């Protein structure tokens, strides 16, 4: 496999300049951090002093944040990358997405989705890798033993030093420049899809650590550590959202099938669940349903916000323009005002609610507007038409605001073309509240009834009334907007550029990078990932370690597994128990994965229908049952229960027979209990009852098929 190369000629000086700038910025930050720690509020001082200090600090930071924003400049994007012809899987939507598969030694593949992006400062579109996912195939083409493992949003990176330092400064609500490009480090994944529970435990561990240990070291440590963790987590979340958007979009436009339907819903639901503390612990059986519900909920919110914004625009005589993603979904919308209507008085007073921008008609800034304007033509029914359409009249329009639609309750203001600070103010308001209460006043939900009640009432009222100061989902919408800017063709380049510039100023997370840098980082990181993937000590070795970790549950009981997990957590991840690889244990891993695959399928079958044959293809069901029958000694109670339920929910003799064969070969008590339960079913006719009893009374021999398959599997893994 020939690696994909990206050339970035003519950019060196730009990058060097950028790095020098960042170094200076980092030095300033270090100095600031020192000063800050020195003058940090004394824990024993009164609340009044604390508040006073926090006000001063806040003011300083806000002023500072505005100055640093002025430094953000547009950067030139890299030239087009040239994908390897052998690696590219052509898609039906070749103009927008393409798929690349890279085989990994040891039996896996790296699947990457590339999109043709157009950055705001670019004229040419280029292919940019956006998301990579590792699928562990155990070296065969059978999907039954596949495991999805790591997911890399390629714009997600380890923050630079300056970013990290800024990220630990409380009340630093602005970006801290970009991460210097040119690094060859392997990008960090956002999730291990095969072990999502790790993240849940990590979250719980860090929360405990923060509460028990870090919080006790006084305000500076407490505030810094909390702020840093929060920024890191939100940065990660924003990248998760981006990955989700890319995957949804790829799915919606019907790209070449990279993942099965089940895999796609697993990836997406696991990503969605990263938002929740216990999300990683949710059982796989629920993933499909959870994903469907989330899709419904997001589309519901989108539709409501579309309509709310249209109605509010209509009521204020503004012009509403939905912005579409390439799949036709409207995730954002803009409001404009007709230039010739400025200064006109309307009978009704302007209502700012939900729009969250000031009255444009009485705004002097718009009268002397020298920003972007557009002229569009409308027919007699107020439809946008071509300029040469008979009867069309021109309207010169000034952009007012851009909103995100994918959030609960109300459209979220992302860009206010007259007041860049407006969305930032809203974005910050929630954080300020959280930071002041947590870091300075030391109040938390569990800290006092009064605070808890006050906070609950505040949250309820602001959420109920749809006030735009309490929007945890703003992050999501920003991330989507970045994607929209890169993919949407309908926006004028000048407007795109203006939106991007404003968007960068709005960001409150010091760890965020701007759009151009992200594109550059995506290319770099993809190259690094591919290099890592082909290195013998790279991805293949990591995969091997992961498999050996996965093998732990095949060799050890539950108690031991818990101990290993505990050791892992307490050593901050330094110790991870892994089994020694051997052909035998790899064969067992292969078998365990297949059993999981068939058990999950049978569980789904058993749960889904009152009569199996009406809904399912019985050949497929019998195949899974047969597999369970063949490896009865290895399967758990879940498969037992599924087989018994399927027996009772089918009238197909052959399927029933295989169910009984499965149950008879499963060597555990639950299988016997299930057989007993079946034998006692009053609706079962005598012939079947007798068969069930015969199975109960004499143990069934092990399946010869299984023995043969075991042998062949062991041989295969031995060769590997």
């Amino acid at each position, binding site marked *: 496999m020939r690696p994909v190369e990206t050339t970035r000629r003519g950019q060196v000086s730009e990058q060097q300049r950028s790095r020098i700038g960042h170094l200076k910025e980092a030095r300033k930050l270090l100095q600031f951090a020192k000063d800050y720690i020195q003058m940090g509020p004394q824990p024993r001082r009164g609340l009044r002093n604390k508040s006073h200090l926090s006000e001063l600090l806040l003011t300083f930071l806000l002023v500072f944040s505005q100055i640093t924003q002025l430094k953000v400049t547009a950067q030139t994007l890299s030239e087009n990358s040239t994908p390897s012809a052998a690696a590219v899987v052509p898609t039906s939507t070749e103009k927008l997405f393409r798929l690349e598969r890279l085989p990994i030694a040891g039996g896996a593949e790296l699947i990457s989705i590339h999109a043709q992006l157009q950055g705001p400062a670019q004229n040419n579109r280029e292919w940019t890798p956006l998301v990579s996912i590792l699928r562990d195939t155990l070296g065969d083409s059978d999907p039954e033993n596949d495991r999805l493992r790591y997911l890399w949003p390629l714009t997600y990176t380890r923050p630079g030093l300056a970013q990290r330092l800024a990220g630990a400064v409380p009340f630093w609500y602005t970006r801290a420049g970009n991460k210097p490009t040119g690094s060859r480090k392997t990008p960090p994944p956002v999730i291990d899809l095969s072990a999502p529970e790790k993240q849940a435990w990590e979250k719980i561990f860090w929360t405990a650590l923060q509460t028990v240990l870090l919080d006790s070291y006084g305000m500076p440590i407490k505030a810094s550590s909390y702020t840093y963790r929060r920024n890191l987590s939100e940065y990660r979340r924003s990248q998760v959202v981006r990955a989700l958007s890319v995957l949804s979009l790829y799915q919606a436009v019907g790209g070449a099938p990279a993942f099965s*339907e089940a895999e796609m819903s697993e990836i997406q639901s696991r990503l969605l*669940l990263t938002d*929740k*503390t*216990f*999300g990683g*612990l*949710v*059982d796989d059986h*629920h993933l499909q349903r*959870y994903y*469907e*519900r989330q*899709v*419904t909920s997001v*589309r*519901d919110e989108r*539709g*409501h916000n*579309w*309509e*709310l914004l*249209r*109605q509010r*625009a*209509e*009521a204020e*005589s503004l*012009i*509403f*323009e*939905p912005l579409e993603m390439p799949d*036709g979904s409207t995730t954002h919308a803009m409001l404009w005002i007709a230039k010739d209507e400025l200064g006109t008085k309307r*009978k*009704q007073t302007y209502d700012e609610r939900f729009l969250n921008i000031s009255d444009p008609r009485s705004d002097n800034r718009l009268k002397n507007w020298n920003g972007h304007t557009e002229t569009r033509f409308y027919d007699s*029914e*107020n*439809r946008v038409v071509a300029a040469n359409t008979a009867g069309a009249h021109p309207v010169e329009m000034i952009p007012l605001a851009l909103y995100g639609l994918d959030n609960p*309750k*109300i459209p979220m203001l992302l860009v206010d073309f007259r007041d860049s600070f407006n969305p930032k103010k809203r974005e910050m308001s929630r954080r300020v509240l959280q930071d002041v209460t947590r870091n300075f006043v030391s109040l938390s939900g569990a800290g006092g009834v009064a605070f808890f009640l006050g906070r609950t009432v505040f949250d309820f*009222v602001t959420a*109920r*009334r*749809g006030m735009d100061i309490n929007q945890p989902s703003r992050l999501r919408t920003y991330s989507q907007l970045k994607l929209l800017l890169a993919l949407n063709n309908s926006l004028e380049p000048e407007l795109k550029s203006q939106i991007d510039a404003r968007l960068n100023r709005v960001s409150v997370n010091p760890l965020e990078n701007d759009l151009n840098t992200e594109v550059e980082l995506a290319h770099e990181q993809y190259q690094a990932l591919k290099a890592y993937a082909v290195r013998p000590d790279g991805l293949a070795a990591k995969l091997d370690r992961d498999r050996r970790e996965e093998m732990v549950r095949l060799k050890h009981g539950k108690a031991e597994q818990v101990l290993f997990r505990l050791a892992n957590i307490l050593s901050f991840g330094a110790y991870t128990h892994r089994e020694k690889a051997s052909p035998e244990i790899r064969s067992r891993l292969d078998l365990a994965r297949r059993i999981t695959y068939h058990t999950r399928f049978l569980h789904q079958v058993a749960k*889904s*229908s*009152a*009569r199996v044959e*009406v*809904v*399912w*293809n019985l050949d*497929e069901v019998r195949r899974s049952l047969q597999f369970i029958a063949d490896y009865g000694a290895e399967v758990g109670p879940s498969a037992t229960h599924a087989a018994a339920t399927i027996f009772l929910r089918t009238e197909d003799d052959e399927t029933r027979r295989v169910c009984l064969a499965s149950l008879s070969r499963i060597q555990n008590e639950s299988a016997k209990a299930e057989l007993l339960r079946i034998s006692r079913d009053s*609706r079962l006719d005598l012939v079947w009852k007798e068969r069930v009893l015969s199975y109960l009374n004499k143990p069934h021999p092990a399946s010869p098929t299984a023995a043969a398959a075991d042998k062949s599997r062991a041989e295969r893994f031995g060769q590997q």
Partner: protein
Amino acid sequence: MFVGATNSFAQAKRLVVLKVDGLPYSILDRSVQERNPRTGKSQLPWIEHVFYQRGARLRNFYVRGMSLSAPSWSLLDTGQHLQVKGNVEFDRYTLHTYDYLNFIPFYFKNAEGSRIDMPGAELLDALGLPLLCDAFPHDERYISFQLYQRGMRFATLRDGLKNRFVKNPRELLDEWTMGLQTRSVFFEQLEKELIQSLDNPKIRYLDLYISNFDHVAHHNRDRDSQMMELREMDSLVGRIWTAIANSSLAADTAFVMVSDHGFNTDEKIYSQGYNLVKLLGSRKGGGHHVITKRHLLLDYSLKGVNFMVPLITTTTDDSYYLKGQSTSYPTVLLDFDGNERASIHLRDNDLNLLQILLQHLQRNKLPDPVRRAATDAFFATVERRRVGWQKHLNELNEELVALRSRIQDQRKLWEAQPKNFTRREIELGYDDQKKRVFAQLEKSIGQEKIYSEYGRTLAGLLALKQESFAPLKLKLEDLIAKQAMGERNSIYQLQNYIVGEAPDGLQLRADGSLDGEKSFARVDYFALLHNITVRNNVQPAVSNRPIDLVANRIPSSQIKHLVHEEGLTADVIWVNGGGDKQALILAREDAKGNLSFRYLPIKGLTQDALGGFHFEMIAWQRDLPLRIFEDEQLIIPRGEDRAAWLSEWHTDLEWLHALHLTKYSNGIVGLYEELAYHRNPRLDLDEPGISPEEQLNRRFTQRQRNLAEADLLVVASNHWNFDVRGFNPGGNHGSFLRVSTHSTFMLAGGDKTQLPRGVIIDEPYDSLSFMPTMLALTGNLRDDKTPLPVLWSKGFRRFPGRLVKEVLPATPGKDPIAVTGASPTH
């Protein structure tokens, strides 16, 4: 003998009805036909298995009337012509609200014992119209929670919550993490109870009402979300069918799936809302304080958390003469529920006029000439309305006397009720009967109070004498009832509606009289509504005009001489499509109660101040209301001229055959069903043998129904809605568009039911066919239309709808139903 004859054809001993709110046949059918790529089976395998392969489905089943839940379920559940005309109805005299969809106040009232049935069932009881479930004894039926619900089982709520929360902690943690689905708690419990009840061979009627699809389709236009709900429903069908198959009455059970309306939802279009409340509150809309029964922007308001939902008043600052009086003198009642239509009640315009004049006359510094002219105008208005108002007042007073007497009787009956009931008596529903007595007593006491109040105020107004008139000493609220709309407005009033004083104040003519034309600001509501356009027109398939048509009922006595027709029913429906595109729907009824209609294209309908109507008849052409002429799906007899055929009288069945595939499906019949008065045999004042008191009670009940009639029925253009409670971008219903009226009706049954298998019925039917078909299926009809004596005694009467004969058991060469030719003699 009749019973024996009927029973020999009646095969289904048990009826299981799955009532699905808002399930469009077209979406369901498309989903059933679609294959699941993994299994190769239908996307809705159970519906295919049960109803497509082992049952019968009606490909053309339509709502008769509006595609709105409360009216539509009432048609399905009673089989009688429409009496419930909206999801919410208001009484014009008292602002009493009939809120048919609001479950939560019902639960509270039931818990405190003041109500036993949902408001819809309560109203139908008052009208003497029994429900389908009433055909079965109390202990032989299982009824789920629904719009026309009888009784309440708090145990269902309790067990539902218990099942949701008392479970494996791991499962609970997963559910909590993913978000608890509280909505499904009770549905799951109801399903569980239904399936348990199927094990009891004594239970012969079971129903389960589900509304998840309707709920999702209002919010989500996308196929995935709707398909998710359809798959849930499909699984439910499977579970019920399997439970039926496992029950002892499997062979005798008929399983029916029915829906109340279709759904106007499109994957590529957001349904757009238009705010009529805001329009009516604006200066150009009349500056009205508007009452609704749903909170505006409910989800965005703190008041919206109030489950008991009082009347919601939207106060306007643009009121001409009622500033600050929104709670005392609202002048518009608006029901927008259902969303593709709205019903608007405007206050009797002469009350506006009187109030404006009285407000002037109560000013100290009014110039004498103006005072004189205003006083004259005031009394001229009272005199003009005196006959009508006095008649209503006299009748109301008579009815209130009868009501008081009934209250006494009811009180005695209540006092005579036993305190405790045995288990058997509870099974038989005696405790519910007792609660019904109390609920009726409570209701009657309330009615007596509020109608008496209105009567007193009207009497005060009528008692005024010009010679002793001293406006400064009068209290306005003693003459003009607070929170009342008075009588319904005439077309003239709606076209010249006085909303306040003109900008230059009261103007006098040369003769010193008040110049009514110049003194008042007026609104023509038909023009106002039709001229609405919006600025943002961003969806290609959606027009920039939210209003499609406005419809009104006009007494045929006022119009028949202009249309040169005899034998018309009492009502003519005027349909105004804006500009010169209008029509009259004329109706006739034959001796058997069969209806015929004529659609008469007209233009420029106006009514003058004296009540005379003026319009011009026009030829059939494009763009008339319901757009029939240009519709390619119109089916008329081969060789017939389209305009000629359309100009003739046709029976409702002929219209249904001709129109059902057109864009507005059965709009002609639907508009008449919705807006006309329908004779209710149970309220027949001339029924032999009824006491004078009973006669008055019946008249009072009729009056209450008439008082719920709105002034204007406003129907939205395609993909528009009037929802102001929130937003329904996914889709809506309520209109007469085929997409909204095309509904679902499918049946399947065990061997002994003899229901046909794998049959598609193309013959069009409407909602009126459902009830008689169900009764015929269970052997409860003595002929095509008439219920058995046992049901007759329960209040069931002759059904106007056609039986779906294709699904009824038939023996070769015989009429499928035992037509005895007997007439009811009960």
